[in-house]
């Protein structure tokens, strides 16, 4: 077996095993840290698919941004000291049936279909220059819209998550009376 094949299976196994931990762990913090390894494994798979820029982007945005955000969410929404960080599950049986059905259908479809392969795979050594060129020519409109979406999401999230001014003054007066 070649080394690349072995590495592919290592990354695939890392992704799936840590994904299983994310879904089935009873502890929210354990799930968040297992998600780190899932994102890392997916980034490794991107390297095998000749997407070097996307692998780095995956590490920067998912591991550096979204995962830290989710951890903040876990810390801010659980009372770590008085209530356990564990959570329960809902309607396991119907969900298992539905998910098993969907997984079987997808795997059978993906296994059995004869995909139309292109004769020549990507012959680029680095995808970043080509991606940048396409982003500023063919895909310039989605690129600009994406920047607007990010600004709107940032401002909206800040507006939603902050407390009302009235709440804050009442909390301060309560603290002062105490």
């Amino acid at each position: 077996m070649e080394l690349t094949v072995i590495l592919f299976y290592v990354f695939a196994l890392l992704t799936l095993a840590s994904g299983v931990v994310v879904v089935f762990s009873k502890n929210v913090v354990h799930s968040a840290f297992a998600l780190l390894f899932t994102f890392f494994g997916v980034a490794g798979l991107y390297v095998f698919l000749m997407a070097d820029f996307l692998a780095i982007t995956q590490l920067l945005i998912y591991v550096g941004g979204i995962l830290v955000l989710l951890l903040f969410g876990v810390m801010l929404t659980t009372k770590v000291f008085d209530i356990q960080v564990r959570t329960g599950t809902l309607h396991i049986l119907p969900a298992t049936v539905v998910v098993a059905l969907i997984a079987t259908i997808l795997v059978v479809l993906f296994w059995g279909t004869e995909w139309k392969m292109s004769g020549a795979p990507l012959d680029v050594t680095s995808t970043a220059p080509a991606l940048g060129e396409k982003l500023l020519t063919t895909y310039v409109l989605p690129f600009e819209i994406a920047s607007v979406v990010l600004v709107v999401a940032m401002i909206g999230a800040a507006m939603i998550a902050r407390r009302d001014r009235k709440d804050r003054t009442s909390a301060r007066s309560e603290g002062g009376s105490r």
Partner: protein
Amino acid sequence: MTFEALTTWLAEPGLSHYLILSALLFSLGLFAVLTRRNAILVLMGIELILNSANINFIAFSRYTTGTLDGQLIAIFVIILAAAEAVVALAIVLNIYQTFQTVNVDEISQLKD
């Protein structure tokens, strides 16, 4: 499928390997979304689903088209995933301030 065909299939990772991997990752994410009570874990399931979709886009871009269009779509998926995570977490924090819980089955009202 004979045993020999299976071993040769396993020895050469190709398009179907990535597709099956992403199908399994999608199923895991869907299971998390359907069963977990904690809203943060539901968000983690959504991130798994988005990652599996990205694997599909990039695998098709590598094997069937031979162009970079799939990778560009994957970039936009990552951007939207970041925006989605930010807004969703802001909503979850607000829900926690209002109801003192983030269990999705206990939140059945729009206001306190």
